[in-house]
């Protein structure tokens, strides 16, 4: 369990209260979120699922502190982000949220190491500490020997691992994963799923996965079903297990990948 999880006052990584978002496009008003209420406890691994048009992307933007609600409250790590100014919001995202994208969003001209340390650079983390953390995290995701490679020569699974290491570098309050396995084949996708589960169980990372992949969602603790801008139901993941998944050691995954 992380320090944050033990902190009684901030038991929740995320809380939303009657979250509304209305987009105005000319004469048309789109009511994307119509009162979302959700809570994510520290150390939880949950998923948000829903068909297209359910407001999933809009909710994702809110959870990522990339956009502000029209009405209602969103409290991340004890802070109501609707009131934060833009430049504070940047700092907030930098320190409290780790992003994982479907398309990895790595900078191809830079090395793996540089990509991972990007959030730490703008934070102003001392170089020595930064390099040490990068290496430590690359070891965790099983890319300890690939720090000086360029992302373009890595496989899709490896690229997503780089992105996961990047998401972890500033020790965020939670990780927000947007379709993390969407661009990967089944086998590699499963490996990334296992890595996320392992991070949650071994390191106590709070993770929110936004996906339409029900199989992936089923492996999380809770599944929030979003429909027409509201949480329609909330059910526990059926394949969620309190034990560790089978292939989860970085070394094992590495060798599994080499065999494939």
């Amino acid at each position, binding site marked *: 369990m992380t320090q944050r999880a033990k902190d009684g006052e901030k038991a929740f990584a995320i809380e939303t209260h009657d979250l509304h978002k209305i987009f105005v496009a000319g004469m048309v008003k789109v009511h994307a979120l119509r009162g979302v209420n959700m809570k994510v406890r520290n150390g939880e691994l949950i998923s948000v699922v829903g068909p297209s048009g359910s407001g999933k992307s809009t909710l994702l*933007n809110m959870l990522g502190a990339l956009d502000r609600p029209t009405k209602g409250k969103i409290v991340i790590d004890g802070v109501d982000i609707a009131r934060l100014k833009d*430049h504070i919001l940047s700092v907030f995202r930098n320190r409290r949220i780790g992003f994982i994208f479907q398309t990895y*969003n790595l900078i191809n*001209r830079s090395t793996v190491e540089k990509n991972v340390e990007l*959030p730490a650079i*703008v934070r102003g983390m001392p170089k020595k500490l930064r390099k040490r953390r990068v290496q430590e995290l690359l070891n965790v995701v099983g890319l300890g020997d690939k720090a000086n490679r360029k992302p373009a020569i890595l496989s899709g699974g490896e690229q997503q691992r780089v992105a996961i290491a990047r998401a972890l570098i500033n020790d965020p309050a939670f990780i927000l994963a947007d379709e993390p396995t969407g661009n990967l084949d089944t086998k590699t996708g499963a490996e990334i799923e296992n890595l996320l589960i392992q991070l949650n169980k071994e390191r106590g990372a709070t993770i929110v996965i936004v996906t339409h992949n029900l199989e992936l969602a089923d492996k999380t603790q809770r599944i929030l079903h979003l429909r027409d801008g509201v949480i329609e139901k909330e059910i526990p993941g059926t394949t969620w297990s309190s034990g560790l998944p089978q292939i989860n050691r970085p070394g094992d995954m590495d060798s599994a990948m080499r065999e494939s």
Partner: protein
Amino acid sequence: MNPLELIGLSFGALKERRLRSGLTILMVIIGSSLMTSLNGLGGGMNAFIEDQLGTLGANVLIISPSGMQAGFGPPQETGKIKLTSQTVRTIERIHGIKDVIPFFSGYAVIKSGGKEKSVQITGMDQSKLKYISPKAELESGSFVSLHDPSGIVLGHNIAYPSDLDKPFVKRGQTVSIEFTKVESEGGREKIVVERKSFQVKGILGELGDIFVDNQALVSLAAANDLFEKGGTYDGIYGITRNSEENDEVEGRIRKIYGENIGISSPKAIAETIQEVMGTFGTFISAIAAVSMFVGAVGIVTTLYTSVMERTREVGLLKAIGYGNTVILLMFLTESMTIGFLGALLGLGFGAIGAYVLIEVLPFGVGALSFSPRFLPMDLVEIFLISFVLSIVAGLYPAWRASRLSPITALRKE
């Protein structure tokens, strides 16, 4: 954020688009090097003109017959005054005039040892040369006396032409001088060549003044005879007691002769030339300024394209906590890098370019050659203009980048 890290990130981005970055730097180089070259040429030319006119005495008025109208086509005499010994006596008596030096001049060909050279020959009282050209001195020999019919003193460049490795003539040698004139005989014009022998009495030291250095001097009588002037002078140098009185003395001469006489002074000539040069310089600088402006537009285009291509990258950076200011500075650093390299290389290429231009353009003819002159303050100014213009050019693309939404990073392609 550490500025060095910022520079590192910007360098990476520029390196990724090597060709495009290189071409943009080239655009800046063209602007700043053109500015540098032209500045060096202008400086060199100004210094050259000052040198030339500086060898002439400051208290000299050049009096010429009746305002020769310079312009297109052959010069036309508009006045009625001939400069004769009577004129000389009149001017001599004017208050403020210390001395009067009348002269004849004409073009002739000097032949020596199978080679020939076309020169201007001036007939004057050579003992008074020091009033007109204070720095003129004999390198060897002596001046020609007042009535010597066949003695000649040669300017340095005639005796030692730059295109010959041996002297053209030596002191004591006899040279043949040919003067070509048109004679009218029974309504028909014919060309007559007059030939006379002269003995080289002296050679002038090198002065750096193209007029004196390329001049041959004979006595007044010899020139009158050779060019068949019949006692009508081509000009009179009026030496004033004090150069500050030049304008007043000029006024007194005008009172007598009105506009039928031409009066100028080295100072006035210098001012006229510098005025023309100034106009020319402004025109050239305008061209250089336009090319600098084009370079700046190049930076806008390159960076703007780069921002558009890197929308996702910028979105990602913003999502992971890079604020508007950091993004703005990142792109500004890119334009600063382009500007810095372009401006610096431009100075170097511009300096080289000035020397190349002198070789290529028709400035460098024989004695008229001069070297570019660069003033450190001008170079600093050109560098700063170029550099600051690049930063200004980067502002808009950088601002656009800083306004990009972080949500773009989440967009699926």
